[in-house]
């Protein structure tokens, strides 16, 4: 594509676009054990005053980890132009040593002039299969062809 260099993101074949997003198809990420190292690094980056419980995992850290896990699904990476927002619920605490993964599906999507909005439902699940956090994320995703 001649206009590729001017586009916001590389137009490689190994990408998923708005048109490729299928409603309701479940995606599951690999699992990851949350360690004390994650908690320490996160505390350093955020500067959050440490909680009284050293084995407690900050609630937002789990959401951050799920964003990285979200790329490790059996689908070419989605060309996300912007993360627009989310509505999130915290159901259960997460402890150091817990192993989390995320399960998601596209709840709905809406085409815009440039790109489209994808509403993703996501559950963060622990090693016992309990949903520890869940909610809806709103993503702006590129279209394969310019409108």
């Amino acid at each position, binding site marked *: 594509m001649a206009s590729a260099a001017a586009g916001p993101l590389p137009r490689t074949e190994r990408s998923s676009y708005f048109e490729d997003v299928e409603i309701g198809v479940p995606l599951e990420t690999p699992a990851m054990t949350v360690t004390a190292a994650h908690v320490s690094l996160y505390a350093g980056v955020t500067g*959050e005053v440490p909680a009284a419980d050293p084995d407690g995992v900050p609630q937002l850290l789990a959401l951050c980890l799920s964003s990285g896990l979200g790329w490790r699904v059996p689908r070419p990476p989605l060309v996300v132009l912007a993360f627009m927002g989310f509505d999130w619920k915290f159901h259960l605490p997460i402890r150091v040593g817990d192993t989390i993964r995320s399960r998601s599906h596209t709840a709905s999507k809406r085409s815009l002039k440039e790109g489209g909005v994808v509403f993703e439902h996501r559950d963060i699940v622990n090693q016992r299969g309990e949903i520890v956090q869940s909610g809806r994320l709103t993503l702006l995703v590129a279209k394969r062809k310019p409108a």
Partner: protein
Amino acid sequence: MVFYAGVGAQVPLSFEDIKVGEEFISPGRTVTEMDVVLFAGLSGDYNVLHTDAEHMKSSQFGERIAHGLLVLSIQQGLLSRIAPELVEPPMAELAWKFRGPIKIGDTVHVVARVSDKRSAERAGWGLVTIARRVLNQRGEVVQEGESEHMVERRLG
């Protein structure tokens, strides 16, 4: 009432002590390249938006932008420095909007206001809502949202 402070002592606060309408303004923090690189490594989110400086030159932003969740996390850290007793109680819900990009070198601060409090279904607990806005050095709101916290009621 406005508080500017460093790391304060954590005083346990009960539901009854929280005043609706009380406002807190955090210190500022400059978002650095190191923050973004560390956060990419920690979260595993290596989206080109945050990691490919050359590619981002041709984007609408002109350069790499910080992860929205990084700035959300920094915001939580900033608030914990001025009102730890307010943000420490666990969140039940968080609704958040990313309004604009945060570039490397931007300085953000948080304005938080207790917007509501009411009884929780669980006996002995209340729900406190905090409306939060993240502003950049030009006073533009780059992120905003509401967190709902479970706060213990005073016994007796």
